[in-house]
């Protein structure tokens, strides 16, 4: 089932939660909606499931317009953020419930539920009620319930946000495996960039209900289309260096230090810009550019060594080779790799280089 959103819009009173969103999710693919809390991810998901009515725009499942179809007729499976398992039913009854509604005979229902439980590895939990299960177990049951009726569309709203870090990674892989096995078109919502990057075929970044960019995880990281996307992805966050354009070069703010960059198109002098540099794109030893900087501090985070560098009065974080002999106070020359360095218009966020 291919899902297509056309100029989808949702208003709550005067507030616009989702604005002019158009995208296509190909049959059998997993798409992630990524964005900070409150950017309208759940709203989009709830419009796809039919829980919320769109203010305007259309939703297509293949060539069927489902915009006005109520949720009970859309045949979507939805995993709620807090699972919403029925507390008075056992795991088995929860999984069987959508089948019961479909009037599947009891024997077949249970058979199918057991199959799913096998796939999702909860066979030993089927007699428990939701309150007797951990978050991770509840989540699996919720997934099984959503998949039980063989939905045309599988929707998950931040299903991993209630789990601890280790379980989250495990479940992430699990979900990926289940999705690959069931081949159902899936929309996965998260505010966690790492989760989005590791799970999906394609990621859509949203900001305040407005579409930012759709791409593969890799492309999103390597080629962000605007400042927001560049800033939202990556840990530690991308370095932001402020400056203005002079003769087609980026010049650091309040300094005559400039560096040349391959511009996408000519930019007028005096435009305020932001140079965004990934921490791994800072070169300390053999750099093309020779930009003088001072080491403010050096520290390690787990396996990585980081240095805080002062360049023309601004600071940036960069990874350093653990063997590289620099320490606080050292003056040296640095430069940037070709990859992971972007120039943005400060006002519009448009990418210039």
């Amino acid at each position, binding site marked *: 089932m291919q899902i297509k959103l056309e100029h989808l819009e949702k208003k709550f009173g005067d507030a616009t939660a989702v604005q002019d969103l158009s995208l296509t999710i190909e049959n059998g693919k997993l798409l992630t909606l990524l964005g900070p809390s409150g950017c309208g991810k759940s709203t989009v998901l709830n419009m796809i499931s039919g829980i919320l009515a769109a203010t305007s725009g259309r939703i297509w499942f293949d060539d069927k317009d489902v915009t006005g179809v109520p949720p*009970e007729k859309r045949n979507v499976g939805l995993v709620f953020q807090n699972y919403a398992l029925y507390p008075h039913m056992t795991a088995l009854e929860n999984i069987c419930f959508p089948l019961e*509604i479909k009037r599947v005979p009891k024997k077949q229902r249970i058979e199918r539920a057991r199959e799913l439980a096998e796939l999702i590895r909860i066979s030993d939990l089927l007699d428990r009620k939701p309150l007797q299960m951990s978050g991770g177990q509840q989540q699996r049951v919720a997934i099984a319930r959503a998949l039980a009726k063989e939905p045309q569309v599988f929707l998950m709203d931040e299903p991993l946000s209630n789990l601890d870090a280790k379980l989250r990674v495990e479940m992430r892989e699990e979900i990926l495996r289940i999705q690959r096995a069931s081949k159902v078109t899936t929309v996965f919502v998260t505010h966690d960039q790492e989760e989005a990057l590791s799970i999906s075929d394609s990621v859509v970044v949203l900001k305040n209900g407005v579409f930012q960019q759709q791409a593969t995880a890799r492309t999103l990281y390597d080629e962000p289309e605007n400042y927001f996307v560049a800033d939202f992805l990556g840990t530690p966050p991308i370095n932001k260096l402020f400056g203005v354009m002079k003769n087609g070069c980026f010049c650091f703010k309040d300094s005559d230090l400039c560096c040349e960059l391959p511009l996408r198109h000519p930019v007028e002098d005096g435009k305020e810009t932001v140079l965004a540099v990934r921490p791994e794109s800072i070169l300390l030893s053999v750099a093309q550019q020779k930009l003088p900087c001072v080491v403010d501090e050096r520290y390690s985070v787990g396996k990585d060594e980081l240095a805080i560098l002062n360049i023309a009065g601004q600071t940036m974080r960069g990874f350093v080779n653990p063997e590289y002999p620099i320490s606080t106070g050292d003056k040296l020359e640095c430069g940037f790799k070709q990859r992971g360095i972007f120039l943005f218009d400060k006002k519009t966020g448009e990418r210039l280089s």
Partner: protein
Amino acid sequence: MKRKNELVKEGSLVERATKTRAFFEPVAFLAPFMVGLILFTVYPFINVFILSFKQNYKLSGAFSSFGLKNYADVLSDPNFLNGLKNTGLYVLFVVPIATVLSLFIANALNHDIKLKAVFQTSYFLPMVTSITAVGLVWKWLFNYDYGLINYLLSLFGISAINWLNNPAYNLSALIIYSVWSMLPFTIILLLAGFQNVDPQYYTAARVDGAKSGKIFFRITLPLLAPTIGLTTIINMISASKVFTELFPLFNGKPGSAYSLYTVVYYLYDMFYAQWKLGKAAASAIILFFIVLILTLLQLRIQRKWKNY
């Protein structure tokens, strides 16, 4: 409690002080209530219990013999047996009807229905009005010649019923009136129960494909079961003590032909009208045990119904 004991190490001064406080603080807070309870409930109850074994008890304190004769007399008194039967029928009809009606009304009130404000005021009405005053109004509603109820029945081609003066219909009239007066309290409790159900379950059920009827019976009702159990138990206890309701409808008589005795009316009759204190006490104790058994049964069922 147990946990606290495990956590606190034995013997330290601080701990001993805490323990002392942990005992005296609740006692101090509870004392006024406990004194009231002992003075006005426990002590009288014990007295009534003892009294129920004394034959021909006089207020002077004299009595002829001690034993089970009062119980034997009460249990063979046709008025008492009639009262037992009427009370049983009354409970059997009033409580389920009131519960089901309340469920529907509370469900409607829980949804955004039209005229919600009007409804909310009107279902509360029986609660804030005096049972006797309203009873008199109902007496008019039940009036054979001019009553609204007979008028409504006539619209459906049903001939007038002599609700209050034909003994065959006395119990029905009492039940109708009592269901009405039981509604507000039940609705309020059920409404609280309805509002405690997380609306996300309804959303989930809709996504699962369920329509509203299915959602009501498979999701709402089971989640409401503990509340329904609670209202049933409270209503059963109060219905077993039916008495006040008789006065306005039948001019203080137990039905138009003295045929609508209830257990409490019998008790009242023995005590105030006939001064048979021992028999009154015995019937009180019998009623007490009936209510106790009902309560225990209900608690058991309720525990089973508490399903998550």
